[in-house]
């Protein structure tokens, strides 16, 4: 019994640590992707965009750029650019889904209320990612964010905007949990084998004892 408990405990520990590790790896990967994408956006490309400029050539140029970049990874379902205002509100500047889905995406200047608010603030200083899946009015996602530096001459690298990318929470869960299933299967098989071995050798031992008992043939 103790053997089975130990196997179960080890299996649970392995599964949990693997899942955490996978989530951490995914977050790091997303942060890297967002960071690289952010370097490809020039601050001047989004400068001056104001509500009503959706679908104008400047807006569409940025949208096409974001789409091209995120097309490298099918799991990234959305890429967008936000601005963190001095009053700490977050407003959208570009949403690459807008041309195809104006109702299900964000317009310029739309205030973004998100559980990932702290991560977006952190992205003013460097790439960050959701600690766990979150749900907002657009769906359930895991996101990564990275700063877009201004490109003004003589600048010290101030952050002018934050780029965000989304991976669906379902994909995230599938990825992080899926890698742990073989561990669970291995643990279950090990427990069955251990139980079988214990049963088999127990019966054999009992039989031997019965044979050795005085009075038996």
């Amino acid at each position: 019994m103790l053997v089975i408990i130990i196997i179960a405990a080890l299996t649970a520990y392995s599964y949990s640590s693997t899942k955490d590790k996978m989530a951490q790896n995914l977050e790091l990967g997303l942060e890297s992707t967002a960071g690289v994408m952010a370097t490809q956006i020039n601050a001047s490309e989004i400068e001056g965009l104001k509500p009503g400029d959706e679908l104008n050539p400047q807006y569409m140029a940025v949208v096409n750029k974001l789409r091209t970049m995120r097309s490298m990874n099918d799991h990234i379902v959305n890429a967008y650019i936000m601005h963190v205002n001095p009053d700490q509100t977050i407003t959208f500047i570009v949403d690459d889904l807008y041309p195809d889905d104006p109702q299900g995406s964000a317009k310029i200047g739309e205030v973004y209320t998100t559980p990932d608010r702290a991560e977006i603030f952190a992205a003013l200083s460097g790439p960050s990612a959701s600690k766990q899946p979150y749900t907002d009015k657009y769906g359930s996602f895991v996101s990564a964010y990275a700063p877009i530096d201004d490109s003004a001459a003589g600048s010290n690298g101030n952050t002018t905007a934050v780029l965000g990318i989304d991976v669906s929470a379902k994909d995230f869960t599938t990825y992080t949990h899926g890698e742990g299933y073989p561990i669970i299967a291995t643990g279950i098989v090990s427990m069955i084998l251990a139980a079988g071995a214990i049963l088999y050798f127990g019966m054999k031992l009992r039989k031997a004892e019965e044979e050795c008992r005085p009075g038996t043939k």
Partner: protein
Amino acid sequence: MHKQYLIVLLMLALCTLGIAGAGASQIIGNVTAPETFVTPPATTTTAIPVTVVTPMPTTVQTTIPPTTQIVTTPPTVVTTEPTITIVTIAPGGGKGWIDVHCNVDGAIVYFDGVPQGTISGGILSVPVAVAGTPVSQVAVSMAGYTNWQGPLPRMPAENEHVAVYATLNPVPTQTTVPPVQSGAIYASSTPAGAAIYLNGNFQGYSPLTIPNLAPSSFSMKAVLNGYTPDVQTVTVYAGSTAPYYPVLQQSPTPSRPTGSVSVTSQPGAALVYVDGNYQGKAPLTVTLYTGSHNFRLSLSGYSDYSQTVYVNTNTNQQLNAIMTPAVYGTVAVTSMPGATVAMDNAAQGTIPAGGTMTLYNVANGNRLFKISAAGYNDWLNSVYVKPNTLTSFTATLVPIGPNPTQVLPTGGITIASAPVGAELYIDNLFHGYTPATITNLTPGQHTILLKYTGYVDYSGTATVNPGQTTPLSIAMTPAPTPTPKSALSAIVALGAVAIIAGLFVSTRRRR
């Protein structure tokens, strides 16, 4: 005056009779205090230290039916707090009054939330049934004034008047918004000098204080060259300075293994390129990461030498590049677009729109170029093509007929050489043999090339001034004669002797 005294005396007499008949005691007073209380059934006047007393006595006419009295009160006491004064009349019949006194006419009086009427002339007297539902709360409200509310300690007895005094104060108008107290962040990095960013915006170099921050959380970043950036969230509270003390860790240096390659060339001074990057002239030693690297050596007059070398970790490898003399060179012809180019009577094409035509893999040596275009005189000259070198020249076509353009002043060069008879090239164009005087040269720098068999080519520049002839005297250097390969022969001879000697010794021993 006498008449007034008479009236007062008469009223006092009537009042005395009425009170005596009713068996009642009257308590007069407008006692003020910060708290509501009920005056005892005796005349009392209480004043607290914060009260302001009006200088002149005032007269208040109480409405105590059925008896009406004019009572002269002591100086009026005005307080800032709501005041309730209860005037108690001894218990009597089944009907009493609650008199609500208020400083604002038009204010609405509520008993337990039920409106009873409005204040008029500073008072509202509401009759109540003594045996009815007792009133517990009295409220007075008026738009633009603070509401007043207070408890009614008890219901009046029959014919009893209970006075309630309510003071309404105007709603204070908010003229100035109290300033929000700000905070600050003090940033001091280890080591000092890191660039400090607040919410992604550069603030200065550590240590520094960032003042006037609204209470909130801020994303802080410290960046220093050679160190891993630090990112933290710092919360600022009003009136305090939040610390930000990032301890920066040195960036890990990549521990990639390296090796070195010592490059030599024959002949020497070849230009060495590794993976396309110029490293210097051979001989030299370059340190490279372990792995394959492409070496290319280039030397004028020789074909490029290219070799891929796998650099091993912590080892020094030798690369000796033996350069082979080049046979071909490159020629760039600049002339009028559309003009046809022929080299050694073979057509090469026409000058493109850019004005320069480049010919590759041209055999080195003298080549006769002819540039022609309709309406222009042919340009014909001999050009010496150097091996593995770009030889460029300009062919200026002159229109047929009188030249309408203004003739620019020209100069010339007189060249004498030792030995005489060397081939003379000016700007890569053949101009005969030395000694020679070349005229009609444009003012400025011109390249001079002298060639003579058995001598090292002379190459230099000369300045031509307008209207002048520049004299040049050049002594050419004899080319070095190749060294006989005697050393190798000696070694071979020595080796042969050693072998013969060895054979001889072994033969002798056998015997």
